Each structure stands twice: as C-alpha cells, then as structure tokens.
C-alpha cells in the first residue's frame, strides 16, 4: 500500500494543481516542489526499509484488476528496480527546482512533470505485463507534451519523432506480450500476465524464444537507445527544455535497460545467450560511434546526447556480459549516467538560460567569469569520462571487467571508448570554458545563483560518493543480480552447445592458445600442497 501511495502521490499532486488558479504561480511551484520533495523522502524511506539480503519482491501488493482476464494490480520492488525508483523521485525533485524560471503555462508544466513522475515510477514497480505496458505507454504522453509545448524551435518534429519511435517499438512488444499471455494460458492453464509467474513458468523452444526476444528487444533498444535506433535522442534532447532532458537521460533511457533486465534476460535466457554477440557488437558500435559523433557536434546538448549513446552502450554491454560483474556494473552505470549526464544537462541549461544559445562556438573563456560554474562543469565532465575516484569509473570498470571474462577483443574495443570520451569532453570543455573571453555577449554573464547550485550540488556530492564508496548503492542489488545471473548464466546452456563445436565467444580464445588455457585451468584447480611437493 505504501508503495502505491509513493507512486501515485505525484499524480494526486498534479490533480491538486489543476484546481489551483493559474495566476498564483508561486503557490503552484511551491506545491509541486513540496509534492516532489515529499515523494523523494518517502522513497528514501523505502530504501532504508529495503532488505538487501533477498532477491524477492518487496513492498509488494497484488490485487485483482480485470479479474476475468487474470490481470492484476501487482507491484513490488527488488534490487534491480529500487535504485531506479529512488533516482526517479530524486531527479523529479531536482527538475522541479530547475524549472523554477519557466514562464509559459507553469501550472500545466508542473502538472505534466508530476504526472510524468507517476508514469515512470509505475514502469519500475509494475509486475504485471499489461500493467507494465500501460505505464510504459502512459509516461510517453506527458513527456511528449513537455517536449512539444515547452521545447525549442523544432519541438514538434522532435516530439513526434520521439513518440513514434517509442510507440512503434512497443507495438511489437504488445504482440509478444499477448502471445506470451495466451501461451501461458495454454501450457499451464492459468490466465495471467504476472511477470513473476511467467518468469518461473515460461517454457518455449529456442526458435520461438528468439522471435519473442526480438520483439522485446526492439521496444527496449529504441528506448535505450542502441545504435542504430538512436536518432530520435539527439533531436529530443536538443528541443526538450532542460528538465525534460534531465528526465529523458536520467530515467526514460533507463527504462530500456531495465526492460532488458526484467524481461529479455529472465524470460528468454537461452535466446539472450544466443544474441550476446549481436548485442555486444551493437553496443561497441554505439560506444565508439556515439563518442566519435559527439566529438564533432557544434551544439552542447547534442554533444551530451551523443555521449549518452556511448554511455548506454556500456550499460548494454554490461548487461549482456551475463555475469555479476557486468550486470552490477551496468546497474550502477545506469545510476551514474543519470547523475553525470543529468548534471551536464542542468549545466548546459544554465548557460542556455543566460544566452539562449548552446552553440559551442558562441562561448569561450567562461572560466574567468563563472568560476563556480566551471568547477561544477569540470566535475560533471570528468565523471562522465570515467575518472577513477568519481562515479563513472566504478560502473565502467565493472562492465569492462565483466565483458573481458566473455571476450577480450570486445573488452578492448569497448575500452577504446575511454580514449574517445576524453577527446570529446575535453575538447568541448576547452572551447567553452578556457581560452580568451572574446564574445562580447558573454562578458556580463553571471555565475550560478543559489537555486542553480541547489540543483547541481547534490549531483556533485553523489558523483564523489558513488566514486569512492559505492557500497550503499551496490549492495541493494547484490542479491537480485546474483539470482538473475544464476538463471541466465551461460553455463546453463554450454553443455547443449557442445554438439555445435566451440562457440564464437564465451572464452578468451583469441588471446591465449588452447594449450596454455588447459594448463592454466589445470593449475588453478590444483591444490597448493600438490605443487609444493614437486
């Protein structure tokens, strides 16, 4: 019940806003902020009461919704969704503060923001396929409105593109959901769309698994977005208002990666294993491609948007390493990306508010007049390129470590993204912050004010906190990940594969000769005292 309350609190807040008079902007903003803060604090309460030791769903609730079809209102949180849930409430709060200066239809804007929050929270707690689908589509609408109404000059094109991309992707997912629903009914006799039940009882042959997997994949890959489905993202980011970009990068993209962890992996473990090479290469292309294209962008927001493509490539790579290092790395990288990229978008918003342009060539030398801004920007930028000691490194390293266990070549290709990240971030930083202050329009620019500091400083603190002591965050999903890995671990399928000869991946075969590998394995298994006798 409590979870329901936390999830729908923003929605009721939005309903309340509807009745407030349009003119009292102050009250509207304060009410929205109060709701967002309360929701964040309540979600923290969820976190403190969360039991780290189990992978089971917590705070769950299961009541019939459409009884005749076996559709339930089933919600719950586990380690995989908890942090995403908390991050959603957290970023909503930050975004309400960041939107303080919006002049146009502030009441409607805040309503959209709060409704969006409930929509996103719903996605992370839904444990019934239909309910998930409803939330998945539902949160599109407020986001569509936020981009379409409060966006930049090409907002209509961007918002429709965003909407259509996601909607087209999810249509196939709906087909797959229906197929699964009828299949479960046929095989087990239970008409249900319960995710946990399906996870335990879905049994389909590999060929069918692959088709279903592809249907889910398309929906989530567009959302992540993976190369080559990413082109909606730069447009949406560029046109969205600052807070829209923060939510988009911080939460909406994470729904894609969450979907892979909640559906593709546990539903179709064998198909997931089969598709590892494809995902790995798409992710690697995404990492390198996103970084390269980011390097030559002229618009700050587009640069950050393409860097998201690169970062999300790391997350996907980690998920499909199918081992604890990779998946834990991917989960923490999910959070990290929300924090660092969120901070970058907020910071880009700061100069946009002052100059109404985001072109890199318009700036230069800001370090001289905006020292506080420069420090915050530097920290966010360095965290985004994964400097050790900051949050990005923890996730990136675990992801790479995970994928290295699978294939050394993939790890090497993905790691090259680390070099390119340094290129695009530092080059951009140099052109915006350093050099001489030449453009006369920039001379009078003010440093960040108190409100802007309030939005960015918590993110900066989190950057160092996760970078130096990520344990409080990582222990929340330890049990869930281990459980997930035990279900999808490639070892479950390897014996079946023996007939087909050796697989193209799964061993670091490219790097060591088989003889050495054999001797090594032998060595590692040999007890120590045997060695000493020789």
């Amino acid at each position, binding site marked *: 019940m409590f979870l329901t309350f936390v999830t729908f609190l923003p929605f009721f807040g939005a309903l309340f806003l509807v009745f407030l008079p349009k003119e009292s902007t102050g009250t509207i903003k304060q009410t929205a902020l109060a709701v967002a803060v309360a929701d964040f604090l309540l979600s923290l309460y969820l976190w403190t009461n969360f039991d780290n030791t189990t992978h089971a769903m917590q705070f769950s609730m299961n009541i019939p919704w459409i009884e005749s079809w076996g559709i339930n209102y089933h919600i719950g949180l586990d380690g995989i969704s908890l942090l995403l849930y908390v991050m959603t409430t957290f970023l909503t709060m930050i975004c309400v503060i960041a939107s303080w200066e919006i002049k146009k239809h502030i009441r409607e804007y805040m309503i959209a923001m709060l409704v969006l929050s409930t929509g996103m929270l719903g996605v992370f707690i839904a444990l019934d396929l239909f309910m998930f689908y409803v939330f998945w589509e539902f949160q599109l609408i407020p986001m569509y409105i936020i981009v379409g109404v409060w966006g930049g000059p090409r907002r209509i094109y961007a918002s429709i593109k965003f909407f259509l991309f996601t909607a087209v992707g999810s249509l196939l997912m709906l087909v797959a959901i229906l197929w699964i629903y009828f299949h479960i009914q046929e095989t087990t006799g239970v008409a249900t769309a319960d995710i946990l039940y399906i996870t335990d009882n879905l049994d389909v042959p590999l060929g069918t698994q692959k088709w279903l997997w592809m249907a889910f994949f398309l929906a989530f890959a567009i959302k992540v977005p993976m190369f080559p489905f990413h082109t909606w993202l730069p447009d949406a980011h560029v046109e969205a208002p600052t807070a829209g970009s923060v939510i988009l990068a911080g939460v909406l993209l994470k729904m894609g990666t969450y979907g892979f962890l909640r559906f593709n992996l546990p539903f179709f473990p064998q198909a997931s294993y089969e598709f590892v090479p494809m995902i790995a290469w798409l992710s690697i292309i995404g990492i390198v491609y996103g970084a390269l294209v980011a390097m030559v962008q002229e618009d700050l927001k587009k640069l950050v948007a393409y860097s998201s493509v690169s970062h999300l490539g790391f997350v996907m790579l980690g998920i499909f390493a199918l081992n604890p290092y990779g998946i834990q790395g991917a989960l923490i990288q999910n959070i990290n990306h929300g924090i660092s990229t969120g901070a970058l978008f907020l910071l880009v918003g700061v100069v946009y508010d002052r100059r109404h342009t985001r072109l890199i060539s318009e700036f230069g030398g800001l370090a001289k007049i905006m020292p506080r801004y420069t420090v915050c920007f530097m920290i966010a930028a360095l965290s985004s390129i994964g400097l050790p000691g900051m949050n990005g490194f923890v996730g990136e390293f675990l992801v790479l470590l995970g994928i290295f266990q699978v294939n050394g070549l993939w790890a090497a290709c993905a790691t090259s993204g680390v070099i390119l990240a340094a290129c695009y971030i530092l*080059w951009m930083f140099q052109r915006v912050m350093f050099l001489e202050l030449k453009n006369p329009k920039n001379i009078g620019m003010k440093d960040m004010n108190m409100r802007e500091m309030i939005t960015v400083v918590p993110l900066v603190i989190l950057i160092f906190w996760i970078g130096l002591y990520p344990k409080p965050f990582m222990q929340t999903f330890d049990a869930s990940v281990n459980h997930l890995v035990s279900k999808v671990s490639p070892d479950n399928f390897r014996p079946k594969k023996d007939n087909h000869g050796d697989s193209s991946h799964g061993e670091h075969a490219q790097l060591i000769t088989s*003889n*050495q590998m054999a001797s090594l394995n032998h*060595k590692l298994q040999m007890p120590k005292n045997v060695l000493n006798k020789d």
Partner: protein
Amino acid sequence: MLLKLTCLIPLYPLIGSIINGFFGLKIGKDAVAKIACGSMILSFLTAVLVFVGFLMLPEGQHAYEQVVWSWFGAGDFSVDFGFQVDPLTLVMMFVVTGVGSIIHVYAVGYMHEEYSFYRFFAYFNLFASAMLLLVMGNNFLLMFIGWEGVGCCSYFLIGYYFEKKSACDAGTKAFVVNRVGDFAFLLAVMYIFNIFGTIDFSEVMHAAPEKLIYGGEIVTIITMLLFVGATGKSAQIPLYTWLPDAMEGPTPVSALIHAATMVTAGVYMVVRCNVLFSLSPMTMTVVAFIGGTTAVMAATIGMTQFDIKRVLAYSTVSQIGYMFLACGVGAYTAAIFHLVTHAFFKACLFLGSGSVIHGIHGEQDMRKMGGLKKHMPTTYKTFLVSTLAIAGIPPLSGFFSKDEVLYHSLIDGNIIFWGMGVSAALLTAFYMFRLVFMTFHGESRVDPSVHPHESPKIMTMPLVILAGLATVGGMLGIPLMHGWHILHNWLEPVIHFDLASALQHSEHMLHEAGQHAPSWTHLLEPKDHNLWIESLLMLFSAAVAITGIFGAYMFYIKRPDLPEKFTKGQWGFDLVQNKYYVDELYDESIVKPTVEASKLLWKECDAKGIDGAVNGAAKTIGWFSRHAQTLQSGFVRNYALFMVVGFISLLLVMF
C-alpha cells in the same frame, strides 16, 4: 603503531587542496602558501615516522598493508581502498613528499604575482595527494586512481594559463595521449584479474611465478599492455609527444610533475610489477629497446631546441629512457636509483631555469640570454652543479646512477643497449652544457630594457638544497664495494625474483599441458661481475661525459660561429629541430582522419543514412495513404467492381 599513520600521508595534501580551493581567495596568499607548504611538510614528516615504524617491523617482514575501506566489488571481485608500505613505496614516498615540499616552497616565490595563486596551490596539493596514492596503493586500481588523478592535475596545471590557446591545447593533448596509455593499463588490469582472480599487488606478484609460464603468451600480453601504459605516463616512444608541449605550464609544475614525480610513475609501475616483467623476456627486450631508443632520440632533439624549458623536457624524456633501459635489462635497482637522482638534479635544473625566466621577465629563448652568470650567481652555481650531475661527472649523483645503468646494460643486456646508453650520455653532456653556455656564459643577448636580477631567497634556497642532494645523492649506491650499495640492499625484498623456481614451475605447467619446455639452463648461469670491467666502464663513461662537455665548449664558447656553419641548410638538422615531424605525422595520420571520419559519420551516416531511412519510411507511408485515399472514392459502383473482381479471383484461387 607508527605505521598506522600511513593513510594520513596522502590525506594532508588533499585537505590542503580542498581548503585552498574553496577558501583560497578569502584567506589571502600568505595563508594559502602556509597551508600548501605546511601540508606537504607535514606529510613528509609523517613519511619519516612511517619509515621509523617500518624499520621497527620484526625481522623478515618487508611490507605493511593498511586497508582503509572496501572500495567496490561485484561477484567475487572486490577491491579495497588500501595502502601498502614496502621499501619501494618508501623510496617513492620520500621523493614525492621531500622534493615536493621543496618545490612547493619555491612555487610560493615563483607564483607570487599571480591572481589565481590559490587555484595553483589547490591543484598542486591535489597532485601531490594523487601521486602519493599512486605510489602507496596496494592494488592496481588504487594505483589507477592516482595514475589518472595525476594526469588530471597535470591537465589542470599545464592549462593553468587557460587563456592561452597553446596552453589549453597542450593540456588536452597530455590528457588524451595519457589516456591511450591508460586504455592499455586498464586492459592489463582486467587480464590480470582474469588470470589471478585478484588485483592486489602482493598476491599477484606472489602467485605470478606459479601461474604464468616463463615467456608465455599471457604474461607477454599483460606486460606489454602495462608497458604501453607506462609509455603514456612516462613519455616514451611512441607516446612522448605530450611532454615537451606540457612545458606551457608554470615552471614549478614542470619541475614537480614533468620531471621529478609524475613522469617517473611508469618506471615505478614497471619496478612494482618486476616479477611479471621478469617472466617475459620478450617484453623486457622491448622495454630496453624502447627506453634506449627514446634516450637517444630525445637527446638529439634536445641538442637543437632553443627554448630553455623544452631542452630540459627532452632531457627528461631521454633520462626516463635510461630508466626503462635499466628496467629492460633487469636492473630495477639501477632504474630506481636513477629515478631518485634524476628527481634531485632535474628538479633543480627546472627550478633553476624558472629562476632564470623569472629574472629576465618571462623570456624562455636561449638566444636571448647569455652572460647571466654575474647577475644570478646562486642560480648559476646550483645549475652548474646539477648540470655536472646529469652529464655524469664523478662524484656527483648522476655519475653513479648513470654508470650503473650503463654497466648493467652491457653485462645483463648486450652491446647495442650499451651503445645506445653511451651515445645518449655523450649527447646529454653536450646539450646540457650547450644550455649552460648559451644561458650563463658569453656575451649577454638579453633585451637591453630588461635588467636581469637574482631571484629572492625563497626561490634560491630550494635550489641550494636540491643541488646539495644532487651532489651527495650518489651515496645511495656506491659501486664496486660489495654491500655498500644501500639502495640495492634496501630494495632487495621488492625486486627479489627467484628465476630458478619460476622456471621450474613453468616447466611443470608446460609438461602438464603436454608440451616440452625449451632449454632454459643458460638463463641460470651466474653472471660474473668483474671488478676490472666495472672500473674500466666507469672511467669510460666519465671520459664520454667530458668529451661531450668539451664539444659544447668548442661550439658555444671557443668558436661561437661553428653551430651556424654546421647547421645551416642541413636537412638533417631541420629534421631533428622539427622533432622528426612526429607531431605532424600524428596529426595527419590519426587526429585529422578521426575528426573527418566523425564528421562523415554524423552528416552522412546519422543524418542521411539512419534518419533518412526513418523519414523516408514516414514519407512512404504518407504517399501510400494519399494514394489509398483515391480508392475510397465514395462511388458505390467502384466498390461493387472491387467486390466482383475480388470474388472472381477468390474463385480462381479456390479451383
């Protein structure tokens, strides 16, 4: 008990950095200077206490580990935020905190006129803290925090004058080139975890001889990757190009970061992983070869430069080449020995050049110096002492360390490595005295409006101390006398490597895998250390140094017209003076194609390819809908016609 203080050593500079960074403008320059230098000195004193504590360890225990907290982990991977103290760490700790403190004091004088005084010291202290993490970390990843941390601080400090484009470019270049090395380092760490299941130094080094086959592919790949990491940080071929550009930073930065500490991190890392390197003869050969080649090549460039700091920068590249040469032939002690003495005399040289630049108001071109001897007596004397040291004149410190490197490169290596070392030594003596003669001797070519003056005490005192250290530093490793080599005895526990047992293990492993081990017996033959050869070589290297100095004397004092004659119109000289066009080559072959390709990817692939397909699909659907519209004409007879056609075709299909 005293060893428990270990974790405070990197903490003091960090705290200093935070205070100066946040409140530096409010508390004023004096307070900033006191906090910055104070934190460094405090950390030096703590290092002394830790040293005492280390000496009091019971017999046979050579390392102390202190885990502060558990950093992160997943599955069976976990990494601690932990420090380790062993002889090697202690040596590096003293270099960093000792030389670091001296340079901090100097910087107070050098930077005094700067508005962003506080910003400089915030970065400077942060650097010291990161460098201490680098040398004190007990595992590869903690070392990597320091490793990237120093790179990051170096980026800030090179770009300290951020309004200058050249400074910004140099900073970015340094960071990116370093990242290339870091990329390899990261891969090596992952591979090490893959093989060993841990990344703790002590555990990896302990298990290495038992798990890796001597000369095997795995250990060769790991060490090669580590070495690529080292070439990035330590400015070796092919990743050395950032270091000369890094001279855009203030001179104390060049002294501390780009001479004494950060750039030697690669050498430290190789020595730290000496067990792994010793297991791979192929990597060792590559290390020695790259080191030797870099030493010679950088020295040739150093002979042709006119910017006083650039000459020193190339000299640094060259001297680090020596250290790698030593590592490559397995003379790890010699590498660390040279690292320590180099820290003394090169820091002194850089600070001296800073004093010169300070004294003639920012001029760095040696063609506009000359005759500064009488204006800056203290700077001149200390500079001369350090130059003699780097040139290898006995009994100064550089002579002993360089001689040891040369000796080992002949005995443990071969005549080619030795030849590289000797030619680099000759060139070093030449270009260093060229620098001294052009700067301090001869006619004054200083701009008449500038009145050269000696630097204040706060700057000359550090020079004197460092010159003193450069003089007596050789005492750490007195050759010839057995048992007098203090450094060697001290480092013995770290660099001890039992080749015989490692080979035995390898043989066993190969046997298990059904392979025959090659004959390794020749590796185990003891090398005879002939006292006569050693003494002869010493005399020879001294003679080489004197020849180099004499050459410089001929060219720049006796016959100042000679250089002009020799170099004018020579394509060879132009090639060297333009640094073999390596920067241009990298620019044309890597940087530009990458940028162009990225633009192509963006404009063609992204905008036209993928988006074109998307928008095309949308247009096609629109086109279909428009044409489908015509079918819905609203005329009933058309619909009837369709029905009839459909009915007939259905019949045809059925029968």
